[in-house]
């Protein structure tokens, strides 16, 4: 049976005018759409500098030479093509909740992938759980979108999350810096802030898309609960009342804030998304307002 399409064609048409944005300047191939601080063979004027022997005579500002009798060279901004990598959380914690966070994350990844492909960015989808899975690299236009969707549809959630391990593997696998979009619930029982900091320190620009279900933030249950951790399988018996629920929500919000701090501290972006928000609302709402996509 043919799986349901992740994104319908009407929504794809709306994504045509968007582009993934980043703030850092990365050395990359010419032909992208983001302006870099690096001077190079671009179209936009950047600055003048003294002419040195060997410089390209075509960039000499001859008007300035006629007036000042000194050779000045015009410098242009380069527009490099930067690799965009989507890290997609496929751990078991993404399957809990009344609405599957994993499906939501896949749809969001598909939308971002389409936006990038339309702008001729190179998109790399990298699933992860305890370690990095097989990646999917795609670039060169919107006609490469269908294989990307097929790849996303065949992903299955399993295992637990280990951000230390995946940070280590990612740095060794992708030495070229670029934009790193992480779609995850960031629920790692050890710690996910330090691995994220490692990735930022390595030179990647982080765009953290924090997905949660309403049940994750504000559990609807009360009374005596037998709880099982979806990733580790550990259990907890707890009496859960209104006060406990308030404490729970406060703790969750504190955790979200810590993730947000990591993202913003390293000139990155953070967007928290509930699964109750539709993908369209998420793209044109919180993500557009954050500047990650415009």
């Amino acid at each position: 049976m043919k799986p349901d399409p992740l994104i319908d064609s009407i929504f794809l048409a709306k994504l045509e005018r968007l582009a993934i944005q980043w703030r850092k300047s990365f050395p990359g191939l010419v032909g992208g759409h983001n302006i870099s601080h690096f001077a190079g063979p671009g179209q936009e004027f950047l600055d003048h500098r003294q002419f040195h022997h060997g410089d390209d005579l075509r960039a000499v500002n001859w008007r300035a030479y006629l007036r000042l009798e000194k050779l000045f060279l015009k410098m242009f901004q380069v527009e490099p093509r930067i690799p965009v990598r989507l890290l997609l959380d496929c751990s078991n914690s993404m399957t809990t909740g009344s609405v599957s966070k994993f499906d939501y994350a896949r749809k969001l990844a598909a939308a971002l992938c389409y936006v990038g492909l339309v702008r001729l960015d190179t998109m790399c989808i990298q699933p992860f759980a305890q370690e990095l899975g097989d990646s999917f690299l795609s670039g060169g236009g919107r006609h490469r979108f269908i294989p990307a969707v097929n790849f996303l549809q065949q992903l299955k959630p399993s295992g637990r999350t280990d951000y230390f391990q995946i940070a280590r593997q990612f740095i060794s696998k992708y030495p070229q810096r670029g934009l790193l979009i992480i779609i995850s619930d960031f629920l790692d029982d050890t710690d996910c802030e330090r691995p994220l900091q490692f990735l930022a320190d390595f030179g990647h620009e982080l765009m953290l898309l924090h997905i949660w279900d309403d049940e994750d933030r504000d559990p609807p249950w009360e009374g005596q609960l037998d709880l099982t951790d979806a990733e580790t399988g550990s259990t907890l018996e707890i009496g859960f009342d209104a006060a406990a629920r308030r404490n729970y929500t406060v703790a969750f919000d504190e955790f979200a804030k810590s993730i947000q701090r990591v993202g913003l501290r390293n000139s990155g972006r953070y967007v928290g998304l509930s699964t109750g928000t539709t993908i369209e609302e998420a793209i044109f709402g919180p993500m557009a307002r954050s500047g990650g996509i415009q």
Partner: protein
Amino acid sequence: MFFLNLSLPEFLAVLGSLSAGVVALYLLDRMRKIHTVATLRFFAAAEKAPVLKHRRKLQQPWSLLLQLISLLLLLLAIAQLRFGSPARASRDHVLILDSSAWMAARTGQTRMIDQARAAARSYVRLLPASDRVMVVRADVLATPVTLFESDRQKINQAIDQTQPGAAPLSIQEALDFAQQAQRLHSQRPGEIVFVGAGRVSGDKAPSLSTPPNLRTIPINGPSEHFGFRKVSVRRSFTDTDTWEVFVAVKNYGAKARSVPLGVQFGGAPVGTRRFDLKAGAEENATFRFKTRAAGWLEARLITQDAFQQDDRAVLELPARKLLPVTVYSTEPDLLRPVFTAIPGVQATFRPPASYDANIHDGIVLLDRFSPPAPPAVDSIWMEPPPNKSPIAVRNTEKKVKLKNWRADHPLGAGLRAKDLEFQNAEVFQVQTGDIALAESDAGALIVARPGKPKTVVFGFHPVRSGMKYELTTPLLFANILRWMAPDIFRSWELTAGSAGTVDVELESETNPSTIHVVTEDGKPLPFTVEGRTLRFFSGAAGIVRVLTGDRELVYSLTLPQPGDIVWTSSSAKHGLPGRSPAQPSSTDIWPWLALLGSLGLLTDWILFGRKQGGAAAAPHTLHRLPWRKAS
């Protein structure tokens, strides 16, 4: 305090079951729930109170209590809790309205049924609004018109639509039916009320058993009345063209009266008679008149009284049917005396040369000749040529002596002649199904073959032999003709009577399997036979035919019979009640109970139920928080 809809054990059983269900659901709702969550880290941070302490303690006991109280209130509302005595609760009455034929009698300008309807409506008006009434129409049958109904409009409509029928009143059946209805369908039996004249047969009144809760509202009718008891017509046994009319007349009044009777057939007077009858006396009269034609016979009592339905009886008399018999014979004078001796037969004598095979009516007799084509109708063959006989001739014997008759068959009924000797006789070969009517030592001399058409073959000529002077000869032909055409010879009698149970006196003990009792549209009517009495019941006016072999009795059940005496009950209450027999003093509080129960459930949902659902539905997203906008 009492329950209207439930008894106390039923109420407690239902309440116990529902309470157990609510408590079970409550415990189920508050039992430990198993969930799989994304992480336990925040639950661990939220955990405050000891776990086991909660497990042994009822949570939200007020919710449970409120639910149980609400449930109790709603159940009390359903059970229709009332304050007061159960004796004052609504009752179920049965109103028996006399719809017998006598109710059509007039007293002054109104009919008795109009007075009965007015009295019934007055009684219903006096009842409390909560009392239920079943309306039953009573003539020879008790017919319920409504169930136990509290809607006064429906009850009055049923009363107003009641009309007098054609049958007499059978009060015992109506009372039995009312008692049974109260026993089976009534929640709290009230009164059984009889409204009507109560005229019943004199032989039934003494044996009536009246219920203790009976009330009668008598409708007084005319005291003087004169009418037919029975009118019947039948053909005379001696002369089939003569009708015998039997009329029975009764003076139902308390004074002696003299009333003339006139009988007409087709508008022409047949006879008159004056009856001088004392009070309660009954007298009969018989008339005879002769006709072969069909027509209407009208018997009329020339009197003016309040009930004219039984002063006139009209009966339709059929024409006399004749059986055509075509005789092909070279010697017609030999056979002519035989057929003229049988009434109802029209014999035609023709020579064998004029044989017509296309005769489709009656019977054909072939005297010593065989036609080229056999007749299509029933036929009698006399000494047919041996090689062309319809029944194979075994041999021809001389000086044959007739030895015995088949006496157990209708064909041989009454045939006793013996020592008959024939000079020449054909002996037939009898097949299966054939009836050997007369036999000699050599074999069958007269054989009848049933089927369509029927055939009787003589091996000798009865008139050319010594049998000519025997009584057996016309009797034998009469039996043959009766066997071939039983409808023609069936005796016919028409009686006008009233609907109900009809007893028919049979001439002899007849096998019930040969008796047919059918209505005018041909539907069979159940009947019983005890000795020589056949009994059937018809609840409606109409025509019923009783066929018993060679006799047909037609009952025109259209003559109403008013009943001999007026039934009264000494133990029953009489007349309309002076005040309402059951005043409602109990108070309906079920609407308040239902309201309180609903309010209790609503309060429980607001205080305890909504919190759970509300927490689950509360939309909180981090991107709406102030710090989220900093990104």
